[in-house]
């Protein structure tokens, strides 16, 4: 559906994104993840044809967004990050207007309008001026205009920013439902959100794609180290050096919470040290109170990938 090749965009002398390549399959939900200023919005603006790339190309369904802009734009529904709306129009009139701009026939707009208003739960606010709506409802109007014309591709820039937690859950559910028949590209800096909704994640930082995989693979594969959380009944001063001496142990950190001693053991990749640890603990006459493998959270992977630091 989308094919982006060596996308580069400069704002003056400053590169916002550099040599970004990616593809999106039809029916996929792709998440752009990255800190603020990483280049997510710039990338989405290029996809939607709002901003021309300084270098590189994007095609939507085979249509170049610059050269065949009109054809490409026909396929897109877009929700910009700021949710720009005409505040002096009613929800109904606004959606009708956007439908017409998107090339819908007047006869097609009417039935579709009531569907979309149902889906976005705007029923009680059809006649309300958009200026009087709260942020959460404006967001719904923004989503409504993006899906109104049933575009093949939905581009949602930070769709859950600034709305209350209940609405966030609703919005995520809505996006997942939409993702069943449409291709969705969304951006977020909230990691659990992306791992929950998306089929695939692109982690973008300082204008470069630093990782690309399914949320699960990112969490499983990229970590490089396995971690174990162990709670041991025994004097910490003695336990620590013993644990560190086990073959395959990379590092051990110790925390004491109200007399409960837990140790975070980092093992080299691919090592399962559970047996070794339990034998050592019991062999020393201490008690093993808990032993658990801890995967790396997306959050940690994200930090690792974007801050150039070892955890």
């Amino acid at each position, binding site marked *: 559906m989308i094919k982006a090749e060596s996308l580069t965009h400069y704002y003056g002398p400053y590169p916002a994104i550099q040599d970004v390549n990616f593809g999106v399959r039809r029916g996929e939900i792709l998440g752009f993840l990255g800190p603020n200023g990483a280049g997510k919005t710039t990338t989405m603006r290029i996809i939607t044809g709002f901003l021309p790339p300084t270098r590189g190309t994007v095609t939507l369904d085979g249509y170049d967004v610059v050269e065949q802009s009109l054809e490409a734009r026909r396929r897109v529904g*877009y929700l910009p990050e700021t949710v720009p709306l005409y505040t002096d129009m009613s929800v109904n009139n606004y959606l009708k207007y956007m439908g017409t701009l998107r090339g819908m026939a007047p006869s097609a707009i009417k039935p579709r309008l009531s569907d979309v208003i149902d889906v976005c739960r705007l029923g009680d606010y059809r006649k309300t001026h958009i200026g009087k709506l709260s942020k959460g409802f404006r967001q719904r109007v923004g989503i409504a205009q993006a899906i109104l014309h049933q575009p093949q591709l939905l581009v949602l820039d930070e769709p859950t920013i600034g709305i209350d937690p209940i609405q966030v859950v609703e919005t995520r559910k809505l996006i997942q439902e939409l993702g069943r028949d449409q291709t969705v590209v969304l951006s977020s800096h909230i990691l659990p959100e992306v791992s929950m909704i998306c089929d695939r994640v692109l982690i973008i930082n300082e204008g470069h794609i630093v990782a690309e995989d399914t949320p699960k693979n990112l969490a499983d594969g990229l970590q490089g180290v396995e971690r174990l959380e162990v709670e041991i009944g025994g004097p910490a001063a003695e336990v620590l050096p013993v644990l560190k001496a086990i073959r395959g142990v990379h590092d051990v950190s110790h925390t004491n919470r109200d007399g409960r001693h837990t140790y975070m053991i980092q093992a080299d990749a691919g090592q399962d040290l559970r047996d070794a640890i339990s034998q050592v603990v019991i062999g020393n006459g201490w008690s093993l109170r808990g032993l658990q493998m801890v995967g790396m959270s997306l959050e940690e992977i994200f930090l690792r990938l974007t801050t150039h630091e070892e955890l």
Partner: protein
Amino acid sequence: MRTAQAVAWKEIQIYFSSPTAYIVGLIFLALTGFFFTQDLGDPFPEATLTPFFDGAIIVFILLAPALTMRLLAEESKLGTIELLLTSPVRDWEIIVGKYVASIVFFLVLVGLSFLYAILLFVYASPDPGPIYAGYLGLILYGSAALAIGLLTSTMTNNQIVSAVVAMGILLALFFADRAFGSISGKAGEIVGEMGLRGHYDDFARGVIDTTNIVYFVSVIAFFLFLSIRTLESRRWR
């Protein structure tokens, strides 16, 4: 084309529901009403709309930019331009739609001023030629002023900047005919011919000259063209 209609219709609705447009209308009617009645106190008043036409074109230097400043500057400011430009709408459809809306509102204002003409026809027997020609001139002049205002609105996201720059261009064009005397040779002639007022005065005297019609239509086409290119330039690499 249907999208241009939709853009125009939306803008017309906004004109008729926004205070700015009504304030512009009020000022226009109050001032031109004053110009119209000005000479009526003379012992031998002339049944003519010339004072009205002469005044109206000055009033429009100030009011036309006020009508057009919102058109695209506000879209840039609110960010709605992002949705407009990512919709499958051609740039000319946006510009033409917005322009037509401003023309419609302007024609309503001009239509209200027909009252002056009706009063003249009821209470006196004016020469109809200069009145018809004058209205044609006023409509062409106003349409040109609105095209200039639309261009400046396309260039900025600040409505005040748009209005002030448009007023500057209008004033410069208004007084350009002074170049006839002050700049010597061909240059003075060229600049002078660009003047709005010189081409308007014939209409007010009841003369419909094709040259003048071509002049105003060219000004309108030129500024609309620039507006479309300016909007389009957002997509240039």
